[in-house]
């Protein structure tokens, strides 16, 4: 075994100090070494330890997609994975896709198409859509809908979201008509 990060605190009796170990993550191009307990989710590591609060906690059970980030370019739910599982992985969050002065094409399209109301699901929607672009498998409206189905929007901004994603997919010449 390559590493044994911690020992568990005793169940019952005196509370043991929370055991942590160093976990090295490359977040938005910056190498960060965080002191984490093994049960810290990647989502909590990003929000509470790396202080990148763009990634949102919705259901915390992999059902809503609000926590979607890119790990080595692939979209996953950061709530259902442990930070310790991602030693030396490249993590991209919404903060890494663009800046207020220099929006990514997807971010600009979401603004242009009014693709949100409250905005809580939006970072996950955009990271998911970026994953969809990276995968290159959405070639029609129906396929964009299917491949964005892991992201729920409580405000029901789906029409705008679809239009925004469709515009960027089309701009890359990947739509089939």
């Amino acid at each position, binding site marked *: 075994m390559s590493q044994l990060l911690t020992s568990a605190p005793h169940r019952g009796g005196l509370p043991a100090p929370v055991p942590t170990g160093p976990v090295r993550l490359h977040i938005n191009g910056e190498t960060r070494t965080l002191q984490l307990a*093994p049960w810290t*989710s990647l989502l909590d590591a990003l929000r509470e330890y790396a202080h990148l609060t763009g990634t949102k906690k919705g259901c915390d059970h992999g059902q809503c997609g609000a926590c979607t980030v890119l790990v080595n370019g692939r979209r996953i739910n950061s709530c259902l994975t*442990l930070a*310790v599982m991602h030693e030396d992985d490249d993590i991209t969050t919404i903060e890494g896709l663009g800046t207020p002065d220099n929006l990514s094409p997807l971010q600009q399209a979401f603004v242009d198409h009014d693709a949100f109301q409250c905005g809580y699901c939006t970072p996950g929607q955009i990271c998911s859509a970026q994953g969809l672009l990276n995968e290159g498998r959405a070639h029609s409206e129906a396929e964009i*809908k299917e491949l964005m*189905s*892991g992201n729920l929007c409580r405000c029901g901004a789906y029409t705008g979201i679809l239009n925004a994603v469709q515009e960027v997919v089309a701009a890359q010449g990947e739509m*089939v008509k």
Partner: protein
Amino acid sequence: MYPFTYSRATDVADAVRDKAGHGASAYLGGGTNLIDLMKYNVEQPAHLVNVAKLPLDKIEDLPDGGLRLGATATNADTAWNEQVKARYPMLNQAILAGASPQLRNAATNAGNLMQRTRCYYFYDIETPCNKREPGSGCSAIGGYNRIHAILGASEACIATHPSDMCVALAALAPTVRVSGPNGERSIAFEDFHRLPGDQPQYDNILAEGELITSLDLPEKGFAKNFTYLKLRDRHSYAFALVSVAVGLELEGNTITDARLALGGVAHKPWRDKSAEQLLKGQPATAETFGRVAAHVVANAVGQGSNDFKIELARRAIVRALQQATEGRQRATDAFLNSNP
């Protein structure tokens, strides 16, 4: 979630040894089901052995003409693998029918087999559940049981296996290779998962400490006449109420070989070999399909809220057999079919 210790295995032997060295331990793959269950305190391992980065992620040809699916290959990589798409399109369709892109990017092939039921009472630790706490009773029997089993259930448990991928695997009949404290062995897929009986706490026949290393598909992939039909409450990102995997071989209009498996109806992916025998040698007609579908559900038992599944399954089998015969699926029943 309860505290636990964590280690990352460097090879299969290391993983097996490490797990054996800890009491209440578990292998960790993609984590999409295990970590969720730990958040609900349904699973309470004191130690996790991360096997996700073991070199078991290849998908490669076997000398006998089959295809080996590595245990830690993700569901997404498996579904989109060129060999899988060309030779086992039923598997491609079943995987893409399940979960979401994010989950398929994380979930592993072995983990798909190992996932637990989504029975509401299994997840709710405040309620009795024989699968979670043997001997405590079954809250689904006489409770709300819309998603529960109509075939092969017991008085102890009426939970269903939630996988789509495993329904196609049941039809394709791979071998599950495992490695454990007592060495390696191979298990026929149909024997891997079990019915609840009076021990519903066991979903499968793995011995303590055994680790899945690959799924070995046989050569025959039913790539021409197949279907994976999934019926559910919404058209994406929902578990099957009933699903049907069919593979046929035809000579003219005569069925020469057949595979038929159902999902969402039993404690395990439900392959019906007697129905397959009924199909062989028969003409691929609506009359044949109706007769076989009636046979499959002849012994089905509803629990109240799920009575509709019996008729739903009967009709789904007919539709799936029809589509497999035609060699094409209705647009609404296919997943991502414009892909080159």
